[in-house]
């Protein structure tokens, strides 16, 4: 498990980009107190999804606006055609932890 940050460092509506100790950058989001993690790099081009716009349980890519469902990784529509990978997140002693390579529950 990769520690990310204390829960209060990632308030609702915010995202953080994790690059240390992960094979590829991961974006972690706080949606109303629930944490979600997906690959940070958009599957269309090389935008960072942590820079995107959170809308409900989806993030809109900052470049060409494909929306990815944070629970499943699925894009809602063009230009992205393939899903991003999801990663399981757990909170241990007030610290957000990533389980890279373990798909989140309900992921595609």
């Amino acid at each position: 498990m990769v520690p990310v940050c204390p829960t209060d460092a990632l308030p609702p509506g915010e995202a953080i980009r994790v690059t240390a100790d992960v094979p590829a950058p991961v974006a972690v989001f706080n949606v109303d107190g629930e944490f979600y993690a997906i690959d940070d790099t958009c599957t269309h081009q090389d935008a960072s999804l942590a820079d995107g716009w959170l809308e409900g349980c989806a993030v809109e890519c900052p470049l060409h606006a494909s929306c990815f469902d944070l629970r499943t990784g699925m894009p809602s529509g063009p230009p992205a055609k393939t899903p991003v990978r999801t990663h399981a997140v757990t909170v241990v002693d007030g610290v957000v932890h990533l389980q890279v390579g373990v798909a989140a529950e309900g992921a595609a």
Partner: protein
Amino acid sequence: MTATVAVVGASLAGLSAARALRARSYDGRVVVIGDEAHAPYDRPPLSKEFLAGTYTREDLALGTAADEALDLDWRLGTTAVGLDRGRRAVRLADGSEVRADGVVLATGARARRLPGTEGLAGVHVLRSLDDAVALRADLLAGGHLVVIGAGFIGAEVASTARGLGLDVTVVETQPVPLAGPLGARMGAVCAEVHADHGTRLLSGTGVARLVGTGRVEAVELADGRRLPADVVVVGIGAVPNVEWLADSGVTLQGGVLTDARCATDVPGVVAVGDCASSWSPEAGRAVRVEHWTHALEQPTTAVATLLGTDPGTRPAVPYFWSEQYGHRIQFAGTRGDGDDVRVVEGSCADRSFLAVYERDGRPVAVLGVDQPRLFTRWRRQLRSAEPALP
């Protein structure tokens, strides 16, 4: 006759319309008519990744496996030559017709050509996949490229060609490139990026003629200068593909004229994407928007109009992006001359900044260069300030 919608134009706007029809549970026949032989493909990479050689044809495909379920009746390689409003039929070049209760006009635009350059080898425009394949082949031979027009497509081609190692000169009639979309001040800032990367930009100079027999050899400027040229790209804008509608009764006014909900003045006929000149409450006039995101999103409204349902979504503010020399340029909103421009983050000199356009103290547009995160927040803010559809 089974219920039928005919979509004319099989590119981004046409495919998006077909998807929107099914998303709204339309279960009639959907016939998609497109004059290109290719299945729908994406155009923005044609001046960027595809021209550079980092994208393949497969990468350009707009369709996905999920589209199989849409059950569309494709008529590719088929040109629509007329619309008969009385018979509610789209006439095709082979003499046949498609009768339909509803018609979506999505025939887009084509590149404007320089008169008198037909048949001169080495002279290109860039709109279609076939154009891009031909241009790339010529660029790979290297040498001198002259780009006529420093708009977005001209600037992107210049940038890609520099990456391929060509010597590049861009000629622009206007004193400041991109002054139309970005305003003079920001247009000048973006123009400086050419010089950063070794591209020569000659602004405020017209082209007198192209020199060469059989194949282009030089571009002669209005002031008499001669630029040697192995390849010339003409990037002087696009004209809507609407001539085929001349006798249809649909009003044409710099494109197919529609209201804010994409309805033309012929019942059951809507228009979307680059061919449509749609009423913009923000601008106070009809505007023909030529941006990717617009062609993607506008069909949702058009299909709701066609089916008589509520469009539901708030109209998005106009948005486009460009990529030049590795910089990401993003613009959203409706700019006017006389707007104040303020750089609120970064600096123009660093080629990384966010500029906000204000009218009467209210933000109306935003330009970002290599600022995707901040730009996205501003674009959202502009969207929520936009009035809902009347």
